[in-house]
């Protein structure tokens, strides 16, 4: 097991290296020049050239790449071209809101979706099942910004229960934190509720037709024990897989929610940096995203051994 974890962690290095090279090349081959953005509309060509020189952007591409890679190996993600702040600091400032939103969303989604999926499977073909599935289809179909604006109108503007925008760090107290993150969590969570509920239902339906379930039922086991201990556990591998994919997608996919609710997270940092061609920030954020994907995938794989003893690494 430990050897497997070590192997997987080592395998992340070439993955990250490939991501790093690809991102660097893509960015530098994309049209657009941060020096022009900085210099502004009225700059003379020689002014732009001087800024480019100060930023090291006039160096050959391979020199820029090795300079960035060297700093990266020393643990330095570089400095933002625009704010002149360390990229690590910028990411640090934005990491908490994004992580908080992602974690809150996935907890919300699991708490709602798994029971929904189990109930839908248990009541398959009934009105309850259909209502749950209609909700699941709606959850997939309605864009997150529509849900966000609708909730904002109802719960913020009309009822005044929640703020329209902004984020309170957990350091300022759990209640203000929860208050600020409640609407974005629900808005973003709806699609994941729909996704996980559908997978849970499908997986449970398959398990519920197995012989051992019939045997357990024949032995007189009550429904709760049957559904949770026997059926859900055996159906959990695909559910955990989809939850894991959901977490990975969430980390990179919160940008719309962050924009609608004005949460200063990594998604917005990335979009702003791309629009301005702030290369060090884009590179740093994408590396962090890639690392998160790799680790989440590793954790999913490891969780299989807990959920299904037949799986060994």
């Amino acid at each position, binding site marked *: 097991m430990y050897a497997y974890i070590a192997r997987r962690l080592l395998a992340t290095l070439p993955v990250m290296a490939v991501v790093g090279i690809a991102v660097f090349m893509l960015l530098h081959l994309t049209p657009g020049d941060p020096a022009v953005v900085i*210099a502004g509309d009225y700059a003379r060509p020689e002014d732009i050239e001087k800024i480019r020189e100060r930023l090291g952007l006039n160096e050959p591409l391979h020199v820029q790449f090795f300079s960035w890679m060297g700093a990266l190996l020393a643990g330095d993600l570089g400095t933002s071209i*625009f704010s002149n702040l360390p990229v690590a600091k910028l990411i640090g400032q934005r990491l908490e809101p994004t992580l908080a939103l992602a974690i809150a969303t996935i907890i919300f989604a699991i708490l709602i979706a798994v029971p929904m999926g189990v109930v839908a499977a248990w009541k398959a073909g009934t009105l309850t099942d259909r209502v749950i599935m209609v909700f699941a289809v709606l959850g997939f179909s309605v864009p997150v910004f529509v849900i966000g604006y609708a909730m904002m109108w109802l719960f913020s503007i009309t009822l005044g229960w929640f703020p329209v925008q902004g984020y309170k760090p957990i350091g300022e107290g759990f209640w203000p934190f929860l208050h600020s993150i409640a609407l974005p969590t629900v808005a973003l969570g709806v699609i994941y509720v729909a996704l996980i509920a559908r997978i849970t239902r499908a997986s449970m339906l398959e398990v519920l037709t197995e012989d051992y379930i019939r045997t357990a039922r024949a032995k007189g086991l009550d429904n709760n024990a049957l559904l949770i201990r026997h059926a859900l556990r055996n159906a959990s591998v695909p559910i955990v897989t989809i939850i894991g994919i959901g977490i990975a997608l969430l980390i990179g996919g919160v940008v719309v929610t962050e*924009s609608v609710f004005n949460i200063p997270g990594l998604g917005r940092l990335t979009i702003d940096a791309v629009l301005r061609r702030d290369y060090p920030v884009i590179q740093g954020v994408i590396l962090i995203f890639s690392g998160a994907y790799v680790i989440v995938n590793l954790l999913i794989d490891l969780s299989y051994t807990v959920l299904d003893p037949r799986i060994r690494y």
Partner: protein
Amino acid sequence: MQHFWTTARHTTLAALTAASMALGSASAESVLRIVPHADLKNLDPIWTTAYITRNHGYMVYDTLFAQDEKLNVHPQMVGKHTVSDDGLVYTFTLRDGLKWHDGDPVKAEDCVASILRWGQRDGMGQKLMDFTKEVKAVDDMTFTITLNEPYGLVLDSLGKISSNTPFMMKKEYAEIDAFEQVTEVVGSGPFRFAKDEWVPGSKVVYLKNEDYVARSEPASGAAGGKVVNFDRVEWIYIPDPATAMNALINGEVDFWETPAVDMVPLLEQNGNVELAVVDPLGTQGWLRPNHLHPPFDNPKARRALLYAVNQATYLQAIVGDPKLYKECAAYFICGTPNESNVSVEALQSHDPEKARQLLAEAGYKGEKIILMQSTDIPLLNNAALVTAQVLRDIGMDVEVQAMDWSTLTSRRAEMKKPADGGWNIFHTYATGADATSPIANIGVSGGGVEKAWFGWPTDEETEMLRDRFAREADSMKKKAIIDELQARLFDHLVPYVNYGQWFQPVAWRKGLKGVLVSPVPFFWNISKDAG
């Protein structure tokens, strides 16, 4: 149902209030919360021309001179100034009591270093430096600018309201290379920058500078007394317009600098919000042809654009609400002393037949026109779409190439032929404050590939007229030069086609008073009704 919502709302509000009191979060600090037009990315208003950094500059720095709401220049940090009889030596004495945020007194040597740094980066600053022999501190309070020959725009340059505004910095920072960013903010302005609370992409905090000595005159534009009525001003960047509108309606912010035009009707209906246009100069749209390559290297083809463009169509497409735009052909902004009606007929006639005739006379034979379309700025996106149709209507073969603004700003610097990666037309706009004079308005330069802005118009006569304007001190003679210059621009050079002038409203919560009329948002002079 209504009863349920009302009861629920009151119950929850009571609970939240109780929770808030229990947490002891009440604060006696007065705070003004602003939604700015952009995120503050960098802190040096000399290093970049970004308007958001200019606005930051006005918070923390001060200027030697400043323009009032009618664009007249008044002393600001300067207490008194004199000009020698030959017009060559300007002597400036600073006001008493000016201090940097670190407590040191503002000295003449700080101002000398600041002027020299600004003079390397700003267009009007560079022009001033061309005429300047020496900038020198005489003593701690006095410095001089000695010219090589008389120049009519010394005070206009030092008092220019928009980017790059000549903000005064402490000598140790002003001596940093003009192409390096100053990252420490030690100004002498009415607010101090709370760097520890700055979260790029989200929030900027300014604290009232208790040591600031405001002028005694009433505030007007950037000039007059900068009296601050709040302990803190917070800029809360909200990129999504719908969210910004909801935050204003909900009272989470007090002031929104650039409400989206399509949200104006909703804001007008809200009883807690006021809307007003406080920038009387507005914004001018520019359709910029490339003068280096056919067909727009020919004056007749450029004049064809004047006849083809109908400002009303553009303004409808990009603004929509007639209250917020004006058809205005003048190159130097309607409603300013430099507005002129000379030679505007071509732009006002909207005569596609005449445009076709001029194109034929220019020798246009159906070559492809590369029109760069910036898709991430809605206003420019719409303008490009209108132009594509306008050009097709007069028989041009147009290829619209979509790209983001960053890509466009790089591509427009290409002088290559359009077919080889160059371009024929792009759109942009200039704030009125940047377009009111032939020197500040970079778009009318006819300096060619060496000196002109992207598109590279080339015309010696235009440059001669701009130079005459810069040297002239008499306002009547200046106006005559403006008329002459505008005639040249319309009848020959057509450096760009002005597709209209529009006005950005600002919105604030009712109860806010003292919002100044100006192209730049200022947060002194504003106060809030108690309760």
